[in-house]
């Protein structure tokens, strides 16, 4: 009898252990990667982070001699933000994703999470952001991972010069999301030689494998999902506005804020992914317009602005918006990017340049460096089929791949924030 009871208790204990250990449920609410990418993480699913943090802003001049055309006047100094702990603490640098500034909503979320976890934080705009292009890009031609990362590394050192008296730092860390994730890996590699920071750990969040592949995917999301093609973009825009007005008028207590898209989603769920893909495409195209225009004007490439035309601060720019709205990343690649780098190195082929815009370019380093880690999603919409498996293979046990979340959609979700913070807490997992 006692034996039986013992066995029963043993079995129960086993079951309990199993259920807690194995049945790990990932309850991020959106299984559709397009919904995840657009709606992100609704407040009720997000990790609790402080609402207000003592965020400080700073600016720095990287090229005091650089002449900045009037139309780009407000980009001459590079802006950044930082959060300071009172006593000694580790410092983490954050790098924003494509087209995003140091103050984008994703960056704000990360800043707060790391500040809460007792880090000093310095947040940097993406090298594809107009401010970075004008104020801190050596070439003014963004997209080259190695060169942009070297620019970032210089900026990090310059800002650190300014802030080191204010912060007591014990260790240096680095992370970035999306394109900023890929750049973090290149910076880590550069830091192995230059040793300005000796980063202890570096985390890549949802990076592209091949930047070139990913931007082609994003271009297609816009070009293939507007019914009737881009000539009918206005009709698409009007339909979207009508739908949003409908939500605004009839949804209960709907307001225009960061929860608006979630409320819109709850009010009328999209029947297909086409509209969502188009929205992602639009957002990427707007970032590209800003980026390409800044590059064109700064380097006088004669891409959409005639060479020799000096655009002043109050000049009309609407026609450039319309023209750039029709040009893809591939157009930029062929029109500004490739010619610029071939001008520096005539032996450089198109395929050669494309291969440099990829994590595969530094695969040996990625495979061998124990300080690197990866957080990614199985269903990230900017990856080609097979690319997530490539990352899993390269990073092995250093990869944490979530079943869904699309492209960066789950970054604010509780499990993800904990994984992000947890990665830096544990030293040398192997």
């Amino acid at each position, binding site marked *: 009898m006692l034996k039986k009871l013992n066995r029963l208790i043993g079995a129960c204990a086993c079951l309990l252990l199993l259920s807690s250990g194995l049945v790990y449920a990932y309850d991020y609410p959106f299984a559709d990667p397009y919904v995840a990418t657009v709606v992100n993480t609704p407040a009720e699913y997000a990790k609790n982070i402080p609402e207000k943090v003592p965020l400080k802003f700073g600016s720095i001049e990287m090229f005091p001699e650089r002449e900045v055309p009037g139309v780009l006047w407000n980009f001459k100094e590079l802006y950044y933000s930082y959060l300071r702990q009172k006593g000694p603490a580790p410092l983490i640098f954050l790098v924003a994703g494509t087209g995003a500034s140091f103050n984008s909503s994703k960056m704000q979320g990360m800043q707060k999470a790391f500040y809460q976890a007792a880090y000093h934080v310095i947040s940097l705009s993406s090298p594809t952001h107009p401010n970075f292009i004008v104020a801190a890009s050596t070439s003014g031609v963004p997209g080259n991972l190695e060169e942009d990362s070297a620019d970032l590394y210089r900026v990090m050192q310059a800002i650190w010069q300014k802030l080191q008296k204010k912060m007591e730092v014990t260790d240096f860390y680095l992370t970035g999301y999306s394109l900023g994730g890929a750049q973090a890996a290149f910076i880590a590699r550069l830091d192995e030689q230059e040793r300005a920071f000796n980063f202890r750990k570096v985390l890549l969040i949802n990076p592209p494998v091949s930047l070139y592949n990913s931007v082609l995917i994003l271009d297609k999301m816009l070009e293939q999902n507007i019914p009737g093609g881009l000539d009918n973009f206005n009709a698409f825009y009007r339909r979207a506005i009508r739908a949003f007005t409908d939500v605004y008028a009839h949804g209960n*207590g709907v307001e225009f804020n960061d929860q608006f898209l979630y409320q819109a989603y709850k009010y009328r769920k999209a029947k297909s992914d086409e509209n969502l893909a188009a929205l992602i495409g639009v957002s990427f195209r707007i970032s590209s317009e800003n980026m390409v225009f800044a590059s064109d004007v700064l380097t006088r490439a004669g891409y959409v602005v005639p060479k020799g035309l000096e655009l002043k*601060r109050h000049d009309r*720019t609407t026609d450039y918006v319309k023209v750039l709205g029709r040009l893809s990343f591939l157009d930029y690649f062929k029109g500004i990017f490739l010619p610029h780098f071939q001008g520096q190195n005539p032996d450089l082929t198109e395929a050669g340049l494309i291969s440099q815009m990829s994590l595969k370019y530094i695969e040996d380093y990625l495979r061998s460096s124990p300080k690197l880690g990866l957080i990614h999603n199985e269903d990230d919409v900017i990856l080609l089929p097979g690319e997530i498996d490539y990352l899993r293979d390269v990073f092995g046990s250093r990869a944490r791949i979530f079943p869904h979340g699309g492209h960066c959609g789950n970054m604010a979700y509780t499990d993800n924030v904990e994984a992000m913070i947890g990665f830096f807490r544990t030293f040398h997992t192997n």
Partner: protein
Amino acid sequence: MTTKGNKTMRLILMALALLGILFVTGCSTTPKQQINLEPPQHRAEDIIKKSVDYPVDVHDPMEGFNRRVYTFNYYFDKFLYLPVVKTYEFIMPDYVEKRISNFVDNVFEFNNFTNNLLQLKFKQTGITLARFLVNTTVGIAGMWDPATGLDLPRQSEDFGQTLGHYGVGNGPFIVLPILGPSNLRDTTGLAADVAAFSYVGPQDWVDDNDVTLIFNGVTAIDKRHRESFRYYQTGSPFEYDMIRMLYTTKREMEIAK
């Protein structure tokens, strides 16, 4: 007119003079278009089609002037408005700021009331009246907003929306000094709302120049305190075009609501 009135006048004149300087210097540097420029790789003439509508196109015949007012607003914000607002935020506890915001909103229910009525939205007019009564009494002079919790949400309407409701189009885009993006219809609406507020509304009921002056000052600071928009912080070289488009779309949505 009191001396305070004169002071306000002088401030307005000073602002206008600044604006004038900006405009004159702006005009004198109007770019001379070089004629023999090599065309760019992607020419506007080849890509922009007459038959295609673009959301970014907004009727803006005074663009040169508007862009200069936009710049003026940036400097006004930077050197006067925002420092004052920051001082206010530094001195006041968040709790008091919130009470002041609620108080200001409650006084302006007057405009929501008149405009809902003018649009014959009787249910919304009733809700607005009920809100005002509940918040003024239970909410102690409007400093708290118990009405929203009682399922009486704010029914924002202004005279620009009323005009739009009856089919008045946007008219040309206008950037107003200090106040920012608008258009002819909404500027007219704003003037009508201000007139109603002053001559038949709360300001007339109180009929005290000192109170009016203080209320206007508090309102100006409170409104900027609640507005997170900062000029030239979007990171887009096309910020003017984007703001113009978004303002127009936002108003369209508010009118259609």
